[in-house]
């Protein structure tokens, strides 16, 4: 299901989230590892953007950098992250802490490890409520119980006192959603929210996220390796490879005319219900490149079945296709691969 875009509001001129030329590098023993490389995108209020890529493509690091959760002496960040007009990159920790949980929240991949195993789930919800909202203990408790009910946990009164270990994986992910949404954030960063769950539960959780998002007019960055997950639930899709954006377009546009061979390969590796059962999944050959020693050309070239000489010599820039909202980084985009010479590009921005 797709949800209509949020009603226009007076502030819509300023996007909720604006990420510009964001890079994140880690100093490692083998040199500088550029996990996120000059990524730019915008996200409007109540909208959803999907960030797709294999593991190691930098999508989790991107989400955590946007949130500001990556810190430490071995992390280098450049560029800009503006949230409601406020610059987050380089903002003091105290400023970020007042946003975290209150205006922006995060859901983590593994509900088995992301909940504190020795704390009752009710406490894990009220903790956030009492920190950010000026409410007393009993009010917080009542709010937490109603949140548990909203995320579809049966008998929430009783579950309030449960420990995470007493719940199933799907239930734990619902608890995590309840924690993230406790203070009604404007932005939710969901990092592979359904990867650890089985397929039927996956769909339930995604539907739940979608409807809660719609009710609350909350924007979401949905990070996943599964194009199938983002296909019907996002407004725009960003495809990442080796820390870079390699294709970005409105969701329907991306599926109708994808330009990047990597996107095509990702789609081919997504299981489909329409395939006969036991169909072999096409895996993408080879492995993601070593980020400390990228090849000179297109980082995907060694694995790309359309790669030509030019691809191995020079990295393609991110350019616009026929429509300004469709960007891709490929010398020989799909559907235009006729002549021996690369098609001419108009360099974006």
């Amino acid at each position, binding site marked *: 299901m797709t949800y209509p875009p949020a009603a226009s509001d007076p502030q819509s001129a300023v996007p909720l989230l604006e990420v510009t030329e964001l890079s994140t590098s880690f100093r490692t023993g083998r040199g500088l590892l550029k996990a996120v490389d000059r990524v730019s995108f915008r996200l409007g209020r109540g909208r959803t953007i999907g960030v797709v890529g294999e593991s190691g493509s930098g999508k989790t690091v991107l989400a955590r950098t946007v949130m500001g*959760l990556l810190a430490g002496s071995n992390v280098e960040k450049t560029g800009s992250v503006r949230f409601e007009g406020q610059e987050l990159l380089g903002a003091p920790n105290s400023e970020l802490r007042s*946003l*975290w949980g209150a205006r922006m929240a995060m859901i983590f991949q593994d509900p088995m490890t*992301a909940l504190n*195993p020795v704390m009752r789930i009710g406490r894990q919800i009220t903790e*956030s409520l009492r920190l950010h909202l000026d409410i007393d203990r009993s009010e917080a408790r009542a709010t937490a119980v109603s949140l548990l009910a909203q995320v579809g946990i049966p008998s929430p009164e009783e579950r309030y006192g449960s420990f995470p270990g007493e719940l199933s994986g799907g239930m734990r992910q619902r608890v995590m959603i309840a924690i993230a949404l406790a203070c009604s954030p404007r932005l939710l960063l969901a990092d592979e929210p359904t990867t650890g769950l089985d397929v039927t539960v996956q769909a339930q959780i995604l539907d739940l996220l979608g409807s809660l998002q719609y009710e609350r007019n909350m924007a979401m960055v949905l990070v996943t390796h599964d194009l199938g997950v983002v296909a019907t639930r996002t407004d725009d899709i960003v495809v990442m490879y080796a820390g870079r954006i390699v294709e970005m377009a409105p969701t329907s546009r991306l599926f109708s005319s994808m330009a990047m061979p990597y996107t095509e390969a990702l789609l081919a590796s997504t299981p489909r219900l329409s395939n006969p059962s036991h169909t072999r999944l096409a895996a993408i050959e080879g492995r993601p490149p070593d980020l400390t020693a990228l090849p000179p050309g297109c980082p995907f070239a060694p694995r790309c079945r359309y790669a030509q000489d030019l691809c191995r010599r020079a990295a393609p820039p991110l350019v616009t296709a026929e429509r300004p909202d469709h960007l891709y980084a490929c010398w020989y985009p799909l559907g235009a691969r006729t002549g021996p010479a690369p098609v001419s590009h108009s360099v974006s921005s």
Partner: protein
Amino acid sequence: MAKYLAKRAAAFVVIIFFVSLGTFFLVHLLPGNPALTILGPNANAHNIALIDKQLGLNRPLWTQYFIWLGNVLHGNLGQSFVTRESVVSTIAHAFPIDLELVVISQIIAFAVAVPLALTAVRKPNGRFDRYSTAGTFAMLAMPPFIVAPVLVLLFAVNTHIFPGPASYVPLAQNFWSNIHTMILPALVLALGSIVIYYRLLRNDLISTLQEDFILMARSKGLSDRRILLRHALRPSSISLLASAGINIGSLIAGAFVVEYLLQLPGLGYALVNSINQDDYVTVQGIVLVVAVAVVLINFLVDFLFTIVDPRISRD
């Protein structure tokens, strides 16, 4: 939870049985003959046989064991051949001193180790961490029989901050002067515990802080301090508790040295005296009580586990 505790309690009974076996037969391996001790210069073959018969020492060892065990189960640990005092009353006088000593030493150890660890993990391998690691290891390297005289010299002889050896005041007589006399011996005992607790908690905290749920807690906007105390401390304290259980057991033995050095009339003091006097009934009683106390402490720790980490009783 109830099932887990029932299982632990069953194990407890079995362990106590073996402890009683060990106590009885090991003490009988000690050299010395009680009849000789009792008779002193009057010892001759006839009198020795008479005393042996009177005390039941001519019966087979197994029979003696079961008679003793029967008495123990009725709360009777026998009567000393030497002092004519009942062993139960000797222990009742001495044991509270050990208990107090261990409790105070553990309060000191935790009060030092936990804040040290919590501060050190804010910057692992930072200056504070390195200094407190070095400092606590230095404490471990110093055995009580060295530390005790040095502390006595520093705090009792030179500065009179604490009273010196053999100045024990019973708790019932004067609470504060009792505590005052106990601090120095407890400190000696605490030094070895501090490094163990500090290192364990520090390492466990560092690995807990890598967990996803800590990142999740940060993403809620909680302060570092709150994350440490509310989210990291509890899941990091399992090995701390386990080692405390084992450590407290060995501390009772360690207390013997301190009591003897600082002339505190606790169990260790009584034990050394009764060994010197071949008073094996008292030795037996003391060893049994200490062994049961050690097992009991570990049972208590098992119970604490279930409170600290609800996952333990579920498995």
